[in-house]
């Protein structure tokens, strides 16, 4: 009967999803447990910082610049109606520091660095490099996963901060240099409205949480990928889709906790 089959399918998928969440959680704690040895071999983290952080720099900086420029342009068009163009700096800075910086940087990070991590680990597994390590009594989580995890956590807040800073200058360029909003009020209103602890530090906390989520999803998908070409490609797709959704959901929760109801 097709109806029973459909219900059975839903149940199967749900159980499978819960199973994978449990595995991912166990994987997360395993990674934390094996982190100590990766800090003793810090050059591994440095190497991963290069491939996740440094290689994401260009996309983050260019995207930040354009997002800031668009914010400047759109903000000006709307604020002009109420005669408050001088609040453009506030709008650009708060929008970037609170939301767009952490979220867009994390989305870009997931598709630029997260997918690469998944594909790399998945391919290592498919070519049996991970089994070879186990044979040599090297724990693959300590050697492969933990350094990438910490590199992701370290680089994400830095990338988000860069994104916001470059974005503010993009907004400045469009608003002040091109359109001609008063430079003094652009900066002074921004400084009066943006609070270091409430806005900037909360943005840093957000990007830290996103970095953790994206990195652990990417590493888990790679580590769990079926060792075939198809399996690796499917895992890479799942990394980008899942981490994008998780970023947006976490962002809502964090925003509600930080800025809601005050």
């Amino acid at each position: 009967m097709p109806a029973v089959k459909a219900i059975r399918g839903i149940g199967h998928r749900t159980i499978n999803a819960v199973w994978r969440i449990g595995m991912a959680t166990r994987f997360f704690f395993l990674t934390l447990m094996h982190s100590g040895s990766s800090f003793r071999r810090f050059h591994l983290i440095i190497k991963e910082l290069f491939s996740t952080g440094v290689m994401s720099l260009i996309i983050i900086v260019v995207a930040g610049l354009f997002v800031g420029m668009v914010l400047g342009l759109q903000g000006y068009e709307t604020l002009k109606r109420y005669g408050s163009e001088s609040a453009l700096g506030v709008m650009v800075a708060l929008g970037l520091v609170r939301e767009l910086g952490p979220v867009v940087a994390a989305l870009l990070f997931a598709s630029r660095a997260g997918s690469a991590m998944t594909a790399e680990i998945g391919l290592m597994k498919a070519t049996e490099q991970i089994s070879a390590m186990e044979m040599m009594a090297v724990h693959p989580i300590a050697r492969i996963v933990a350094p990438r995890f910490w590199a992701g956590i370290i680089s994400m807040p830095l990338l988000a901060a860069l994104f916001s800073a470059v974005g503010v200058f993009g907004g400045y360029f469009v608003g002040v240099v091109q359109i001609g909003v008063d430079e003094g009020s652009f900066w002074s209103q921004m400084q009066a409205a943006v609070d270091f602890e409430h806005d900037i530090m909360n943005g840093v906390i957000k990007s830290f949480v996103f970095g953790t989520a994206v990195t652990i999803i990417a590493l888990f998908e790679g580590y769990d990928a079926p060792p075939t070409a198809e399996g690796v490609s499917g895992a890479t797709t799942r990394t980008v889709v899942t981490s994008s959704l998780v970023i947006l959901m976490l962002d809502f929760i964090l925003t509600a906790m930080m800025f809601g109801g005050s």
Partner: protein
Amino acid sequence: MERTGIDLWVGMFVVAGVAALVMLAMKVGNLGTYNVSDAYQIHAYFTNIGGLKTTASIKSAGVLVGRVESISLDTQRYEAKVVMSIDKRYQFSKDTIGKILTSGLLGEQYIGLDAGGETEVLKHGEQLKKTQSAMVLEDLIGKFLYSKAEEPAK
């Protein structure tokens, strides 16, 4: 440990990220704008503070001279007690008037200090005697309606 090209790139990345954070804190945020490090505190009572918040600015002649330290309700007088930190560089006479003002039509509220003529200056822990409360829109409308009703009908 030998140096590699990767170390240089990672170093540059970390420096750029930290520089961006510092830039955000100093140029975008309020950390670099005003730091009341060397300050003395005075307090004042207001019958209504409106929307005044802690860390609101205190200005005299439009110049930022301090920040609001704390706001509490004094249950002896049922008035709001506002503690202000004022920069040591600025001294105010004893008969200074403190007013709660609004920057722009819909802007933030701040405290404006109008210096008086007395020669003695306020010291740490002393009180501003003369204050003017915040304008509350409902009160203003009420006053306006009351004065309209008092006018003889034409």
